[in-house]
């Protein structure tokens, strides 16, 4: 499948399909399973300085248009995660993901967690359901994006990927702020909302945190528009994330301007084998439509 080979800010990938952060990215050993199932790259589940239990269950639900989650950044914290990921044991690129409340937290994490074994680092400034982080900590503004990106840049030479929220009105402006501050790519986008689902028998919201970020098919058209807007605003590559479930969805995302595509909720619909399935569907479509490499379709919807 040479037609799917891409290069994303210096990272070569066998296909443009990346496991999105927060889904299954807990151990080197499980990355092996993802590698065997065709993932082009993986992003680890985000790591904070201190261990976090996250929100109490239920933290995730499947409704008729996708998933809604309020996991609340559960993670074992810097010390344990450092041990787990000190050596990357898979061949596919592994992208780190670090979180914090203030620029100095990101700085600390960049300094103490990142190493050359990672292919890049993603900084999600966009989680909609964890107090002290993401949009609930005001990280989605151009000012905060600039400050945090610069803080991370000080301590790493790895490519920096800034993950944005679809809730931002002028997402292109925030993407520009990230680019100016030294980001090498943009992930667009995080989950939408938050939303709420109420169980009418008990008259209670189903998620314990009451609200959660919306992903999956409901998010897809919004994510495609976000990618389209960002593509017009910056020169750095975009990882398009949001509801991509089939090869056609991935093609659409790339036509909007994405250089690679993140998968999350797709694992729910089609199992962990979804990477190989989508890669094959993309490959078939490209051949049928006389493209020799997938990069030829990046941003063609703008022409």
């Amino acid at each position: 499948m040479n037609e799917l080979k891409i290069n994303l800010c210096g990272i070569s990938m066998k296909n443009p399909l990346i496991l999105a952060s927060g889904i299954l990215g807990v151990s080197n050993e499980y990355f092996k399973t993802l590698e065997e199932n065709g993932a082009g790259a993986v992003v680890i589940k985000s790591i904070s300085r201190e261990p976090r239990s996250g929100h109490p269950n239920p933290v995730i639900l499947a409704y008729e248009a996708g998933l809604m989650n309020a996991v609340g950044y559960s993670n074992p914290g810097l010390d344990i995660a450092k041990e787990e990921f000190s050596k990357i044991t898979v061949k596919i690129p592994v992208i780190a993901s670090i979180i914090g409340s203030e620029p100095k937290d990101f700085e600390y994490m960049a300094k103490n967690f990142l190493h050359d074994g990672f292919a890049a680092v993603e900084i999600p400034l966009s989680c909609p359901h964890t107090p002290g982080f993401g949009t609930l900590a005001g990280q989605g503004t151009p000012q905060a994006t600039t400050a945090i990106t610069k803080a991370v840049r000080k301590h790493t030479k790895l490519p920096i990927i800034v993950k944005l929220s679809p809730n931002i009105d002028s997402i292109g402006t925030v993407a520009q702020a990230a680019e100016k501050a030294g980001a090498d790519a943009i992930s667009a986008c995080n989950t939408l909302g938050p939303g709420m689902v109420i169980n009418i028998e008990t008259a209670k919201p189903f998620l314990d945190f009451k609200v959660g970020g919306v992903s999956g098919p409901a998010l897809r058209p919004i994510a495609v528009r976000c990618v389209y807007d960002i593509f017009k605003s910056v020169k750095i590559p975009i990882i398009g994330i949001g509801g991509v479930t089939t090869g056609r969805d991935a093609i659409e995302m790339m036509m909007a301007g994405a250089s690679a595509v993140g998968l999350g909720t797709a694992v729910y619909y089609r199992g962990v084998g979804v990477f190989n399935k989508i890669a094959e569907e993309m490959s078939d479509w490209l051949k049928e439509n006389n493209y020799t490499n997938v990069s030829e379709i990046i941003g063609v919807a703008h022409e």
Partner: protein
Amino acid sequence: MNDANKLLRASEQIGTSKKQIPSGIDVPSEKQFSLPSELPNVLPIQSIEQECSDIKTFYFRYKMNFKPGQFVMVWIPRLDEKPFTISYHNEDSFGISVQEKGRFTKALFAMKPGDKVGFRGPYGNSFKLFDSVSDSAKTIVIGGGCGAAPIAPLIDALSVNKKSAPKVIIGARSKANLIYAKRFPDSTFVTDDGSFGKKAFTTDALNELLQSGFKPDMVYTCGPEIMMKKVVDICIENDIPCQASLERYMKCGFGVCGQCVCGKKRVCIDGPVFEKEELVKISDFGKFTRQKTGEKTPI
């Protein structure tokens, strides 16, 4: 069966919800309009039975498409959601046997018939059964502590008639913690302190059965993981096929959150039942579990 099919099959068992790849959704006719989802069914408790000092069974009237070994996610609004295996199952009702352990089970124990709890599922794979009755008679089923709960519907399924009944070993710390003595009276019972049945471990009873010349075609087990590890080791030594049902902290129950990752597998969707050949490759089996934070800790 691949993951997608398994997921599809699991979702088909959740009453009306039927999951499909979104781009291929057939919009149902207006009369029965309902898009696929996997939200909980809220059911009133039908009746409650005290099984032993710290285990109660809660019964619910609901037609559940279920296979022995599968589990449900049980929801108490504003408190928590936890996985439990189905321990009783028939045409129009099911039961879960719950051991009083923490905040969640204490709240469940305080409930009365008519009180409501939510259910998602059933989730996970199931114990693999034999097609012919004569083969089931050559099986051993071992349950330790509340690990007897998941294997109970399996014993029911294997015991189509007297001839097909498997050899059952049920063990517990003491008489006060042992369940299903009346439900499966022909079982071999063992307790750590000898207060009921023989003073022995389930693995002692298994060894004894094997030494008596009984050659099983399959050993099924559920219980403390250290016990299951020993059972699997005995099965490896004696070249006997074996299946064990694992337990891990769970969040989503449908294979996306990574909370129950165990080696290269997810317990919620690749398991909870694993065969001997898979278990030897799961590096965490018998050694590590994963806390709510994702931290791996020794079992």
